[in-house]
């Protein structure tokens, strides 16, 4: 004889079978199906999605916003009222800085595009996806190291000097970046592992309307599964970080070129699962 776990009364041989016990079970059953509680629901998560887009200008010296330096120091303080002290010199953790970049010596830098939001209820970040469309005349990133590669890298080797991370501010010390929780970080990964297509598709792309003036979609599809629980009242941040190698070697260091934000069209997306 099976026992019941979600209803209050058991009925078995030798026990009292009173109307009040039967009614108690019946009431519990009807309440359970009239007002289904979260514990009785198989699915109660809704996927929501935020989208970011950055198609760089093709002018010679392009605008760099929203790409900001990951390292805060006096070397890139404004002229008129420069700050002299910084609370968070390294505002991003664990970016895996390439050896050739030493921002403290003004020798290259890391550039980050950070997006943030405040969660009111607990949520799950399902995935972070970054599509980098390249291999075009205008956006010519090849995602490999160039003729003068950084130290320890081979000419033609896949770049592995980029970083995507998901982090949450400390609830107790919200603006101390040493106290953040880095929930997910992807760094020092070979970009070629994320190649969209084995064979590049030549353009123009007429497989949908309107036809795209350039090639079919070539580049990198970086889909990073997270399934990370975010507590209620959290300040969540996602940062995409690219390397800017010191000049004059930068243009030949890698497919990122001199202006790394300018070498590909970026579409980024963050999916969350939010509870009913």
């Amino acid at each position, binding site marked *: 004889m099976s026992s019941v776990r979600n209803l209050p009364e058991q*009925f*078995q041989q030798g026990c009292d079978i009173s109307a009040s016990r039967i009614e108690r079970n019946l009431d519990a059953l009807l309440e359970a199906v009239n007002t289904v509680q979260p514990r009785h629901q198989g699915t109660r998560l809704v*996927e929501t999605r935020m989208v*970011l887009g950055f198609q760089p200008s093709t002018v010679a010296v392009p605008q760099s*916003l929203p790409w900001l*330096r990951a390292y805060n120091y006096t070397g890139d303080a404004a002229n008129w009222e420069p700050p002299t002290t910084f609370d968070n010199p390294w505002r991003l953790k664990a970016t895996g800085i390439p050896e050739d970049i030493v921002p403290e010596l003004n020798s290259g830098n890391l550039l980050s595009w950070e997006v943030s939001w405040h969660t009111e209820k607990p949520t799950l970040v399902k995935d972070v996806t970054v599509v980098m469309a390249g291999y075009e005349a205008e956006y010519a990133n090849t995602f490999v190291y160039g003729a003068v590669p950084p130290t320890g890298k081979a000419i033609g080797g896949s770049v592995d000097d980029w970083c995507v991370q998901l982090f949450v501010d400390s609830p107790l010390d919200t603006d101390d970046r040493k106290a953040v929780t880095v929930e997910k970080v992807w760094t020092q990964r070979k970009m070629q592992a994320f190649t969209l297509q084995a064979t590049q598709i030549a353009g123009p792309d007429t497989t949908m309307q309107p036809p795209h003036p350039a090639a079919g979609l070539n580049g990198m599809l970086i889909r990073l599964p997270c399934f990370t629980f975010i507590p209620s009242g959290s300040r969540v941040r996602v940062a995409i970080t690219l390397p800017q190698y010191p000049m004059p070697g930068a243009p030949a260091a890698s497919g990122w070129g001199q202006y790394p934000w300018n070498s590909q069209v970026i579409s980024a997306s963050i999916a969350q699962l939010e509870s*009913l």
Partner: protein
Amino acid sequence: MAQFTKKSFARGVLLTTQHVQTPVDAVATALASASIDGNLPQAPWRMTLNLPFVDSSSQEYQVGTDQQKSCILLPFVMPPPQEAFDSVSWQQPVNFPTLKSISISFDQRAEPYAVTDQYCAASFEGYLTNTDMDRYTLTLELLERLPTILGGTETDFRSVYKIVIPGEETYGNQFVRQNPYLINELNLPINPLRTYVFRLTAHGLYSDNVSTERLALPSFTLSLAGTYPLMNRDTFTPNAPDKTDLLPQTAAVTIPTLVPNQLIDGTSDLQAMFSVFDQHLADRLQSGISDESELAVAEQLDMDAAYSIIAVPMWGSTGQVRCRNATGAGLPYLSGVAPETDPTCDRRVIPVPTGFTVHHIVVVQNLVSYPSPLTTTFAGFGGDVGGNNLYHKVGVSLLAINDHYANQQIGYLEWTRPTIAHQIDLFKMNGTEESFRLHNMPLVAPAGTNNVSSYTLTGNPVYCGSGNSTTDTRNQIGQMPEVFGAGALQSPSTNGIENLLEIRWLIQDAVDGLSNALTLDNVLVGTGGHWVYIIGKQILHRRD
């Protein structure tokens, strides 16, 4: 009112088996037909608007009333699903989305300082400056208006919410900054047939004093969260898995029939009856869809679709572009030589939202360009000033990228000034210059199958979602909207294995060119860029 009721077991009344059998039979029938209502809570929705930057040029023009001064405008609509959209009598739908909270954020490099923009006289963009942080005081106002398609005038707005966020206290405190800044417990009803516009003013970003830095709000993000009642998911939609057509998946629920004076032995008695229901509760009541478009083998819950809106920014990183600076503004795929008759295009590629049914696609054309002589060098207003051959072409498609590369169109819209036929709204924030046009993108539909369940004629809702070897056979789908060529129903070219959604926005004037000298102040891309809103139902997420 409760879905299931029973009579009380009153003292003195003879208890019969029907007192128990009748209500449990009703529950069993509902379980077996996937029609448990369950009085589930309202489902959440989230819409996030991200601008790569807000710079000082958008705040330079400070002449006239508050409504006439320059600002950032972010319009949106939240129409009901097609089955609740009445474009014949324009009756309000029963359910309104509720706006619960707004998160406002930007990147200030984790310091209590401001960030410079590219219009600084003496610093590079993206630098930190220890300026008066009250220059970061933001005013965010939510305006509501009756769209012109419903007879609204172009200049009428009603303020429904306004907040001033003080810069020094919010962003300049060394120890605690509220970035992101959360506004919660709003509980604002969003009228599904109105247009809403966020107006952001941050006039402190701009300074005409050359000894003062000009500032930016990098990666400015508004994340709106709210609720809407759960709905039934759509069935038999184009591109839906043929295996289920998204119909409720049911399985018989067998309960014993009670017999008077029966010995309790657990096989066909009260205990056995309650055990059946107990097992369902222990297994949890099922609904929803997996990442591979699989439904549960047996479902019990009736409603499992949430209202959903995806805001896709287009051309947001370009800055203001008028015909007068089209050559040299860095628009890709152009020759660099006037008159620029080639097309230029922006493209977003995002993961396909699995279990999403597209009901409406709203295209938001940004014409905002205020005078900004000391930043962008535009002396006068920009707007829609002519150029009858200037095309905007916007498309949305499913995209399969794997062994099989293919797009499957789900919506398309193109227009020139003389051929605007799907306009929802046109408004002038300052009373004189056109600010935004909102267009309804028709969904694909074979000839003669359009419906009236949107602002203008459109196709039936389209299912989006990856498939596996059992869910990749899909219902047939149209090839183009009827007004743009229709085409017969056929199997989707993505073969049910779409993994991405592609959105394109192409701008071209093949006759006069994008740098048309006769319409120099025609706005190709307004401040903050264009938007595409993909609106529909998101089926609850089920893990396999």
